[in-house]
Each structure stands twice: as structure tokens, then as C-alpha cells.
């Protein structure tokens, strides 16, 4: 019996010929990420234990993304503490807000090619799954787990069973990977892939660009998955070639064993919306069209990448927003590319405001939190009670195309009606 790509990566990381789902293994970790929420407590644990070095500073990177720019003194002091500890442990891959490149960790990971296909990547953030889109094993953990890895360079993992999603055909022009993800989570439920790997393949996935694949893997967290993964192909190879990074592609065996297989016709997927209070509470946008909206948010690791902004701009070009609309490019590099392509001008002319790269509003931290009763249509990944502000505010999760269309009409809107041509 063969192995899935997830099993192969974990076998290599544990110096084994073969691993089986359900086994607990000791796995070497290739890359580790911390940010301003997971970083200070993780590094402080090491300092308090008297640990004076991390396993390999070159395999660890740090970004400031959650409470940036700092909304209060406490947040500013956390950044000072993170900086102090990072210097102490020699972490030089450090991306600071306001000093060149920085941003939302998962988008930054891709922009800077910080993780390579086939690697084991553990991040101090639940949406670390995102990097599975380039063919790495990527999973999120809490700060104590991260502290252990920073010290030792390995962790314990239960080898996950893999659920396979075979996506045939191609998504239609007004449908994005986010819609496919919401459709799948709606089908399997918010714990439908708990502790499991979700692997995506087929023509519908091959035709997606890498950013869309990242979105698909990003949302696997919302089904409870340990990781989401897509085998590297020509598009992956091309991307890493441009970055001068070599890798040995790993693929699932023909006879790999899957816990379950789903077949999806991409062309049948419609623009989807996940209504409060679960990402699994999804249905076609057409069923709730016309819902009154107070806010539109386009940003985050899920919906603030360059491709996301390009799609939003297609809909918003020449129009005017009817409701408060915030757009947050996920990294400094994405911001700059969006500026050079004229996207920022389109957004600003439409009346939206452009935020600096930050996770702020997505998790209800700062920079546009919702008040009681407010309804927000958002390109982010969670709509739990209070996720973006008051516990009685409401978040509707959609694709960047649907969010942009809803900004223009002031109501939840299927983007098909507003796309040019």
C-alpha cells in the first residue's frame, strides 16, 4: 500500500520508510513561524527556563501582524518584548511593521517563499494550514508547543488520515476558491475533518493559481483539519524557480489509502456565503441576496492576497461603494503591487478606505471592529459570535468577488451581475 503526500512528508521527517495514520511520531520540523501574539509567550517560556539558544535561527521567522500598528500601549509593549527576545535568540528573519516588508504571516510566507514544497512547517497560528497550498505539511499550534519546537527542532504528531477531494472541471469566472472551500466545509461540517488531512487534486485544482490554492488550504482549518495539502505541479515549480529555490517534488502514490474520497464538479459551484455563526453554515449567495449590509471587509490571509485584490478591483472599477468598506492588502509587497497595478486607485476612487497590512479587524482586535447588531460581509475565515467585534454583531463569509459586489450595492450580491462583459 502506498502513501499520501502528507504521509510521505511525515515519513521523511521522522526518518522512516513508511508511516501509518493513527501512529504517533517524532517529526523533525523544517520551518517555524511566530507572530506578535504567539511569539512573546513562546520565547518567554524559553527565557524563563534558562534556555539560551534555539535549535536553528535560520529556520525560524517572525512577523508582526496581529496588533499592528499597535492600537494601545499594551500592544506596543508586546512588540518591544518580541523584538528583545528575537534579538536575544538571534532570530534575524524578522519582519517589522513600518520597516519594509511585513504582514499577515500566511500571505508573507508565500510572498517571501519562506516555506518550500515538501517541508514540515509549524506556525503559531491556526491558519498555518495555508502553506499546504504549495505542497508542504503545514499545521498550526499554540505557543507552548511552539516553544518546545524552538528549543528542540522536533515535535510529536499523530499521523492524520487523509480525506481526498477530487475536483473536476473548472470554477466559473465569478466563482473563487473561497466559494469551493465554503461549499466543502458546508458539506462535511465544522468538525468534518478533525485531526485529518484534507488533500485536494484534479483539474479544478490544477487550473487554480497558487494564491487560490492557498485560500483552499487556509479554510481547511475551519473543518478542523490538521493540514490541507495540494501536490506541487508546474505552477508550483515555476513559482519557486523564479525565487531561485530548488525542491524535490513529492506526490501521493497511485495506491495511497484515503479515509474517504469526495468528487466535486467545479463548474457546479456557485458563489457561497457562510452565515453566522459557523463557516460550515454555508449556502449559495443567491438564496440570501439582498440582505442589508453595514460593512464590507476585504483582507486577511484568506482574502487579502494580490489575486483577491485583483478580483475585487474587477468588480469595483468605476463604481462607488454604498456601505463602509475597508480593504487591507495582506503584506507590504502586496500593497505595493496593488498600487503599481492601479488597484489601490480603483478602491480609493470607489470610496473604500485602504488599511495597512494587519490581521486587526479579522479577529476583532482593532482597526474597524463591529458594534452591536452590525452586519459585515467579509473575505475572512471565521464568523463565530464576536469574532469581528461585539458578540451580537454578524459576519457573513464570502469570496473577494462577492464582497466587492456587496460593497457596490450595499446588499449581499452575487458578483455575476456586476462583472464586466
Amino acid at each position, binding site marked *: 500500500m502506498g502513501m499520501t503526500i502528507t504521509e510521505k512528508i511525515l515519513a521523511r521527517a521522522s526518518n522512516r520508510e513508511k508511516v501509518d495514520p493513527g501512529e*504517533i*511520531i*517524532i517529526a523533525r520540523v523544517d520551518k517555524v513561524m511566530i507572530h506578535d*501574539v*504567539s511569539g*512573546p*509567550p513562546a520565547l*518567554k*517560556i524559553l527565557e524563563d*527556563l534558562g534556555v539560551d539558544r534555539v535549535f536553528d535561527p535560520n529556520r525560524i521567522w517572525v512577523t508582526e501582524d*496581529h*496588533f499592528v500598528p499597535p492600537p*494601545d500601549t*499594551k*500592544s506596543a509593549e*508586546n512588540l518591544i518584548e518580541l523584538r528583545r527576545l528575537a534579538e536575544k535568540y538571534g532570530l534575524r528573519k524578522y519582519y517589522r511593521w513600518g520597516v519594509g516588508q511585513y504582514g499577515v504571516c500566511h500571505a508573507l510566507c508565500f510572498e517571501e517563499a519562506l516555506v518550500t514544497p515538501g517541508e514540515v512547517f509549524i506556525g*503559531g*497560528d*491556526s491558519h*498555518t494550514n495555508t502553506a499546504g497550498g504549495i505542497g508542504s505539511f503545514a499545521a*498550526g*499550534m*499554540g*505557543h*507552548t*508547543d511552539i*516553544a*518546545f519546537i524552538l*528549543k528542540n527542532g522536533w515535535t*510529536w504528531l499523530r499521523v492524520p488520515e487523509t480525506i481526498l477531494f477530487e475536483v473536476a472541471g473548472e470554477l466559473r469566472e465569478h466563482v473563487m476558491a473561497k466559494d469551493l472551500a465554503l461549499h466543502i466545509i458546508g458539506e462535511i461540517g*465544522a*468538525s468534518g475533518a*478533525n*485531526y485529518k488531512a484534507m488533500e485536494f487534486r484534479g483539474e479544478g485544482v490544477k487550473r487554480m493559481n497558487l494564491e487560490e490554492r492557498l485560500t483552499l488550504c487556509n479554510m481547511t482549518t475551519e473543518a*478542523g483539519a*490538521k493540514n490541507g495539502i495540494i501536490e506541487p505541479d508546474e505552477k508550483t515549480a515555476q513559482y519557486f524557480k523564479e525565487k531561485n529555490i530548488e525542491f524535490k517534488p513529492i506526490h501521493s502514490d497511485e495506491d495511497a489509502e484515503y479515509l474517504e474520497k469526495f468528487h466535486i464538479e467545479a463548474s457546479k459551484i456557485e458563489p457561497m456565503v457562510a452565515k453566522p455563526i*459557523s463557516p460550515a453554515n454555508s449556502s449559495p449567495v443567491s438564496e440570501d441576496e439582498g440582505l442589508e449590509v453595514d460593512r464590507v471587509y476585504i483582507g486577511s490571509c484568506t482574502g487579502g492576497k494580490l489575486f483577491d485584490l485583483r478580483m475585487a478591483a474587477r468588480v469595483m472599477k468605476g463604481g462607488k461603494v454604498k456601505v463602509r468598506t475597508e480593504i487591507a492588502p495582506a503584506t507590504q509587497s502586496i500593497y505595493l503591487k496593488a498600487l503599481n497595478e492601479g488597484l489601490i486607485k480603483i478602491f480609493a476612487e470607489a470610496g473604500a478606505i485602504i488599511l495597512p497590512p494587519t490581521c486587526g479587524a479579522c*479577529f*476583532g*482586535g*482593532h482597526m474597524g*471592529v463591529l458594534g452591536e447588531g452590525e452586519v459585515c460581509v467579509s473575505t475572512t475565515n*471565521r464568523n*463565530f*459570535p*464576536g*469574532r469581528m467585534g461585539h*458578540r451580537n454583531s454578524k459576519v457573513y463569509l464570502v469570496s473577494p468577488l462577492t464582497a466587492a459586489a456587496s460593497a457596490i450595492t450595499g446588499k449581499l450580491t452575487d458578483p455575476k451581475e456586476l462583472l464586466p462583459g
Partner: protein
Amino acid sequence: MKVFRGRVHKFGDNIDTDVIIPGKYLKEFDPKELAKHAMEGIDPEFPRKVKVGDFILAGENFGCGSSREHAPMALHAAGIRVVLAKSFARIFYRNSINGAYLLPIEVNDNIYNSISDGDEAELDLSKMTLRDLTSGGEFTLKKIPEIVIEIFEAGGILRWKPKKL
């Protein structure tokens, strides 16, 4: 292995980490501060209702969402020591054990349905039995994986010395 005794605070399915500790408190790392906001997203009165040693009893997928370790930290600091749930989200499960905050124990539908909010309960880890002292019900729990007990009893993963593997 020890005995836990306390009141049961009962919740439903998919209690997520945003409800357990809202995102705006993530800049806070002091457990005492976090405890003041434990379960704020579902019951702002929760911290005042809990005494040290109390249990949470929940449905499916407890702790889904963010990797924030603030969630088990806040529950521990509020007084909770054991969470009984039909199932757990994976990062919350790991965090609870690796930081030695909470013991997450899976229960079946029968146990979940038999115990009411506010009941007094007693858990004996050596026998893996749970007694509802209010109703008189007695239940046998599923065995906890050995590695989980090892790490938890060591006081967390950083103090844990792996025996095998």
C-alpha cells in the same frame, strides 16, 4: 492520578476559541486578567460562577478555531481543571495538555445527556470513573492516551522527558 470534584458548567456544540476568550484580549498574557474574560462571548458572568476544580461539559468540537493558548489559560485561571466534551478541536486539545492547563476527556452522548448544568461531579482518574453526585449517576470514561497523561503529569511538554518513541 487524582480525584477532581466540582460543579459542572454545561455548554453545547462548537464552543469556539473566540467565545472562550475574544480576540481583543490576545494582547494580554497574564492568566489572572484572562480569567476575568473566560467564556465572555457566551456568558459574561461565567468567571463569577466558577470555583477552582469545576468542570466544563460540552458537546462536539470544543475549542474549535484559533490556536490561541489564551483559551485553556483563561479557563484554567478561572478555576476549570477538566473539560469533558463529546469531541475536541485538535489545537485546543494539544494546548490544554502541553501547557498542563486542563485535562480534556472525551465523553459519549449518554454521559453528556445524563449530566445537567449545575450538578456536582467527581472524577477519579485512577479508575476513570465519573460520578454525578447530584443525580447519583456513575459513568466509566474512555482511557486517556498514555502520552497525554505523561505530558500532563510532568507539568507540560517542556518539563516532559519522553520515555520511548
